[in-house]
C-alpha cells in the first residue's frame, strides 16, 4: 500500500474541522481521485499528505512513513503539483527541470536521467531553452507535470491536473497519467472538479464533503450503488444526501 490515511483531521479554528477524521488508502499503481464541492476539504487533505500542513490529529503513512513523524521521508516518496501552480518565470524551462531534479538527488547522473525523462515527456522541445515567462498556461502545466513524474515518485499528488487546459492538452495529460500508472506502477492521488476526467482515468474515487469522506469505491461500484448513469450523478446524489 502506497498511502494509508487514518482519521486525518485538520482544524484552522477551534471547534471547526476543515477535514474531519477521514480515512482512505491508495494501492500501488492505482489512480485515486478525491472529488467534492468547493471548500469540502480536498486541498487541506492533499496539503497534509504533501507535508505542507500539520494534521490536528490522525496520521497518514506514505510508503510506511508518517507525515507527522517522518515528513522528510515522506517527501522523498511523493511529488506534488498544486492547482494553478506556476514556475520560476525568470528561469528557462530546462533550468527549472535541473533545479527541481537537483532537489531530489545529489548525483549528477541521476539528475541528468530525471531531466531527460521530463524533456521527453513534456514535448516542449526547443521551447525549453526559453524563459518560462514566455510560456502559455498549457506549456507551464506540461512542464510541471513532467517535473512531477520525472523522479518516478511512489505517489504523485495532482490537484486539478488539467485545469485551464484545452481539450488536446488535457487529453495528453490524462494519457500520460494513465500510462505511468499502468506501465510504471506509479500511484496517483488526484483532485478534480472535472467528473468526466475522473471517470476516464481513475480506478477508485472518494467523495468528500464538509470535511468528511462520504463514500469510496470504484467507478462501477459507485454507479451501481447510487443507481447512477455516470460519476456526475453519483456525486450529485452523494453530496445532496449529505446536505439533507
Amino acid at each position, binding site marked *: 500500500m502506497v498511502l494509508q490515511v487514518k482519521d486525518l483531521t485538520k482544524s*484552522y479554528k477551534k471547534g471547526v474541522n476543515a477535514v474531519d477524521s477521514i480515512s482512505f488508502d491508495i494501492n500501488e499503481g492505482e489512480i485515486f481521485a478525491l472529488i467534492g464541492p468547493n471548500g469540502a476539504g480536498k486541498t487541506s487533505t492533499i*496539503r497534509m499528505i*504533501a*507535508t*505542507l*500542513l*500539520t494534521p490536528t490529529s490522525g496520521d497518514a503513512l506514505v510508503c510506511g512513513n508518517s507525515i507527522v513523524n517522518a515528513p*522528510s521521508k515522506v*517527501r*522523498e516518496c*511523493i*511529488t*506534488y*503539483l*498544486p*492547482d*494553478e*501552480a*506556476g*514556475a*520560476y*518565470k*525568470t*528561469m528557462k524551462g530546462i533550468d527549472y527541470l535541473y*533545479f*527541481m531534479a*537537483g*532537489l*531530489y538527488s*545529489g548525483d549528477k547522473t541521476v539528475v541528468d536521467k530525471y531531466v531527460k525523462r521530463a524533456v521527453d515527456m513534456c514535448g516542449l522541445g526547443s521551447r525549453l531553452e526559453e524563459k518560462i515567462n514566455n510560456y502559455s498556461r498549457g506549456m507551464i502545466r506540461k512542464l*510541471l507535470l513532467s*517535473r512531477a513524474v520525472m523522479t518516478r515518485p511512489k505517489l504523485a*499528488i495532482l490537484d486539478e491536473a488539467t485545469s485551464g487546459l484545452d481539450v488536446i492538452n488535457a487529453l495528453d495529460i490524462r494519457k500520460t497519467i494513465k500510462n505511468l500508472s499502468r506501465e510504471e506502477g506509479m500511484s496517483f492521488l488526484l483532485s478534480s472538479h472535472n467528473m468526466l476526467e475522473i471517470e476516464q482515468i481513475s480506478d477508485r474515487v472518494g467523495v468528500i464533503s464538509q470535511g468528511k469522506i462520504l463514500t469510496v469505491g470504484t467507478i462501477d461500484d459507485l454507479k451501481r450503488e447510487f443507481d447512477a448513469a455516470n460519476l456526475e450523478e453519483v456525486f450529485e446524489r452523494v453530496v445532496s444526501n449529505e446536505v439533507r
Partner: protein
Amino acid sequence: MKFGNLLKKELSQLLTKQAIFSMIFTCGLLVLLGQIMGNTMENIETSSDTVYVVVNDDTQFVKDMLDALPDYGTKATVVKADGGMDAAMDANDTNSLIVIPEGFTEKATNGEKTEVELYTRLSGTGLANMVEDSVGTGTTAIEDYLTDYVFHDRLDISEDDTKLANDPMMVVDFTMSNGRTAKIAPSTVSGLMMSLNAILPMAIFFLLMMASTMIMTAISTEKIDKTLETLLSSPVSRINVLFAKMLAAVIVALLNAVSMMVGMVFYMAGFIGNGAKDMAGELMASSEAADALASEAMSVPQALSELGMSLSGGMFLLIGLELFISLAIGLFAALIMGAMATDAQTQGTLALPVMFTTMIPFFVTMFTDVNNMPIPFRMIMYIVPFTHTYTALGNLLFGHQLAFWLGFAYQILFLAVIMYFAVKVFTSDLLFTMKLPVREAKKK
C-alpha cells in the same frame, strides 16, 4: 548540494540585471558626487585667485589699483564686455565680472564714496553650484586697496598705521565638539556634517527599501504562484529553504552595503581628501588677514581628527555593520510580511509597513536630532530599529558612544527576535495559513 542548488536559485532570482544595475548605480552616483564636490572645491581654489574686471574708467589710477591687487590676495584680469556681460563671462570661463564704472577715479580722488558693479551669473541650483557662486570675487581686495589709498595717500598716515586701521581686529575661529577644540571655522565643519547627514541616510533609506521590497516580492510571488508549495513538498528541509532565501538576500544586501560604503569613501574624499586644501582658508581667501589666518588654521581632516570627528576605518566598518544588521532586520520583516500575501493586491499593501518604518525615521532624522525630541516621540523613534542606523554616523562623529552602542545592541536584539519569528512562520502552518488581518476585517 541541495542547499547549494537552492542558494543558486535564490541568488539568480535576486541578482537580476536590474538589481546589479542599481547596486553599481548607487556606488557610481556617490563616486560621481564626490568627484563633483572635489572639482567644486578645486574651482573655488582657482577662481578666488583671479577676478575678471571690465574697466569703463580708463585712468592711471585704475591701472595702478589693478596692478596692486595681487598684494591684496587677488589677481585682476582686464576683459572687454563689448558683446555684453554673458559673452564676456563665456569668453573667460567665469560666472562673475567686476565693472569699474566711469567716474570711479574722480570720486576716489575727490574723497567721495566710490562704487563698483559686481555681476554674478548663477550657474545652477545644485549644492556644488551654490557653493561655487557664493565665493567672494575680489571686491574685498579693491575695497582694501581704496581704504589704504584713503589712509595713506589722502590722509598721509604711515603704512603700518594704515594696515592697523584697515584691519584692527582679527577673529580667530575655534570649533568645539566632543570636549575638544580645533582651530577651524564652525561653518566649515557644520557644512560638512550637513552634507554627510543628507546623503548617508538617504542612501541607507533607498538600500533598505530596495532590499526589503526585493525579498518581500520574492516570497509573496512564490506563495501566490504556488512555487513555494512545490518547493516545500520536495525533499528539502524548510530551514534549508529559509536560510537559502535569507543567505541569498543577505549576500545581495551585503553587496549593496559594500558598494554603498565604497561609494561613500569616494564621496567623502571629494570633500576632505581633495588635496587636503583648507576650505576655511579658501572661503576667506581674498583678505590678507584671512590668508594669514588660513595659514594658521587647520586643514579639514586635521581639524576633524582634532575634534574627534574624523571617520576612521573602524567607524566605516561599524556603520557598515550597523547597516548590514538593519538590512537583515528589514529582510526578515519583509519575509514575514511577504508570507502573508494571498494575491497581487495584498502584495502591494504589505509593502506599506516596511516602507513607513524606514521612511519616517529617515525624514525625522533628516530634519531634527532625535535626541532633542520630547521623550514620548524619542521612545517611539527608538523603537523603530532603523532609526539607530540613521543616527549612527552622527552618534559616532559627535562622540555619543553610549547612544551608538545601545542602538547597536537593540538592533542585534531586534534581529534575534525577528529571526525567531521568521523561522517560526516558515516552519509552521502559518506560512500557508497566515493572511493580512485587514483583509479579514474587510470580509467581515
